[in-house]
């Protein structure tokens, strides 16, 4: 009996554990919010949480792809800022310019991703350094050319940030749509499978006949484009392009934390987007509860830090110890084969 329950616990995937942690956070949040005399599940509160998820969600989805490929992207906050000022500048408050603005912003983001991907996969520079470098380059460009806010978003574009379908914010729905796309990409396409292979062991992947540069390049481009989406959303919310909005949000480190919280191995090759979304949700619930409890903003970071380490510690141990399923749980077929012998 004990072995069986142990086996069941062991059989729980890391995504399952993240789900449990999220459930725990929601329950704890409900209790704490109730103590404050509020209802956690009120429409307004749920809207707040879902809205808070959207920006970090976009960036974390992209970051998941990059981390799965065994790289990192620290340039995302600067890409988000850059997209915001470029698109805002082109839109200049005119509804007719929304499409060119969006396309130009995402194009710039994709170009940055292409540079990141090229430096990582072709020049063989560690993703940490490559993206730190491109991030610094963009940050210098932003600081030199954009003092203060730049451009403005027309009201039609601002609607994306503030409209709802039922209780659900449109921005979060778009984010979840991107997440679904990323899940499909990873599970159903050759590119996705190759990305896992390259992240697991680039050399083995190469020897198996995979072109290792292409998945990594694609992951970086997608990550930057998603960061660009986050930048566009920030533009819609703020209605102006702010050159510092990305770095103020610490989206680089927080997105990596969300990815790891979601059960993806930092070394690459293992993990999924569902877990990441759960990780982002944990952050959003945590922030929401702390805001309701009026915790000091500086102390919130302390709580965040403790929760990140504690949550990752729960499964980091077994994630590494675990051997492939076929070695630990003999299935019916295996025992039948055993008897036949």
């Amino acid at each position, binding site marked *: 009996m004990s072995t069986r329950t142990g086996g069941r616990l062991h059989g729980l995937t890391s995504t399952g554990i993240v789900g449990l942690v999220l459930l725990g956070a929601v329950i704890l949040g409900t209790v704490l919010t109730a103590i404050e005399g509020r209802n956690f599940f009120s429409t307004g509160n749920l809207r707040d949480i879902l809205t808070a998820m959207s920006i970090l969600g976009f960036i974390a989805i992209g970051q998941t792809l990059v981390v799965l490929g065994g790289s990192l992207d620290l340039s995302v906050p600067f890409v988000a800022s850059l997209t915001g000022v470029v698109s805002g500048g082109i839109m200049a408050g005119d509804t007719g310019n929304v499409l060119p603005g969006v396309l130009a912003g995402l194009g710039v983001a994709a170009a940055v991703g292409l540079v990141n991907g090229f430096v990582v996969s072709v020049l063989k*520079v560690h993703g*940490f350094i*490559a993206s730190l*470098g491109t991030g*610094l380059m963009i940050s210098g460009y932003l600081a*030199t050319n954009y003092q203060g806010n730049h451009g403005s978003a027309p009201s039609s574009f601002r609607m994306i940030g503030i409209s709802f379908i039922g209780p659900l914010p449109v921005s979060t729905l778009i984010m979840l749509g991107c997440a679904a796309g990323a899940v499909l990409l990873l599970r159903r396409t050759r590119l996705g499978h190759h990305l896992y292979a390259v992240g697991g062991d680039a050399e083995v992947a190469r020897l198996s006949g995979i072109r290792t540069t292409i998945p990594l390049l694609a992951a970086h481009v997608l990550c930057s484009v998603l960061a660009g989406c986050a930048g566009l959303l920030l533009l819609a919310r703020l209605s102006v392009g702010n050159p510092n909005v990305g770095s103020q949000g610490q989206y680089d480190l927080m997105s990596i934390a969300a990815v790891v919280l979601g059960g993806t191995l930092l070394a690459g090759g293992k993990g999924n987007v569902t877990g990441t979304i759960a990780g982002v949700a944990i952050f959003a619930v945590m922030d929401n509860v702390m805001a309701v409890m009026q915790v000091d903003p500086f102390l919130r970071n302390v709580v*965040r830090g403790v929760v990140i380490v504690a949550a*990752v*510690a729960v499964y980091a141990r077994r994630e590494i110890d675990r051997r492939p399923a076929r070695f630990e749980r003999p299935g019916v077929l295996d025992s039948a084969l055993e008897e036949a012998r």
Partner: protein
Amino acid sequence: MSSPVSTDVAQRVRTLPAHARSPLGRFLAAATTPGGAVFVLAFALLVATVIANPNFGDPGVLIRFLGRTAPIAIAAIGQYYVIVAGEFDLSMGAVIAAQVVIAGNYIGDDTGRNVTGLLLMLALGAGIGLLNGVLTTLLRVPSFIVTLAMMLALLGLVRYLSGGAADAPPNDDFRQIGRGVVEDVPIVEVIPYPLIVLVVLAAAAVWLMRRPFGRTLLAVGDNPAAARTSGARVWWVTTRAFVLSSLAATVSGILLVGYAGVHPTVGEGYEFAAITAVVLGGVVLGGGRGWVLSAVAGAFALELLFTLLTVLEVASTWRDTVQGLIIIVAVAFAARAWTVGRRPSTTAAPPDSPGRTSGPSSTTEPTEGPTTGGI
């Protein structure tokens, strides 16, 4: 049976790569490795700066520059231990901020608290490093996440306790550690205390990396599984690297109090600057490769670059861009050079390994092979 061994040794001496023969050749070869090239880079930047601003070549000015750069170089030494073990320490800047705020609040005007304050800061630094290390090694949380969380928690705590505002700096006696100088030195006029601290710590680091601890640290960074199998206590070696890193950050903080004010933003960005310096010094992210003095040279190269940009009157906002470009180029170069540098040892391997069938060694095999087997 002993004679083949001796010829084996003799042969290995004979078949050393050509660049390993003369001291000059060895020096030139060393200068083309990433760890050596950073010295060339630093020297070139120094020459460029002196040409752009002849005042900078004055020994007195130069030595003050070296003193100013000491905190970042010390941080780079600390970061080196962690990176060479294959980990990251992102909490460095937060540790510096915490120590600076402690110096301002605990020591303050009371000179009697200088020594206890110093000991408290070092103990706190060691404690933070220990916590980082234990969480990384025993709980197996990736160090990137552990130190990131430590950074968030420490910065949050420091800003909460200080209210995010500047405090009065500690007494001048304490600040002397960071801003004091040895007077009346010939040629260079003065020697700043930070420079002396840096030289002592760098010498200690070189010594430490030659000790069993340093050797094991490199082995752990190169291949933890192999190190564990050969009997190294991997968790304890790695934990000590984290302790050393936090202690280095503490020393940096103590020096920075000397000329920066007491503010929670002191030390901001030091972790990335230290990592940049280390990587510029040819130390490989992922561990197992690199020399500690190259990391120090990396820190100097970085600061010289900034000085050069200032001298050339480049807008300070472009600093980031140039820094980003330089690290990418340097690391891309290093990634090439390490692989190129390793190649000779495999292709020009001692011909007494008949298993190898690569082009160059197969041509030497027929002539050398019988000699080895015959005797």
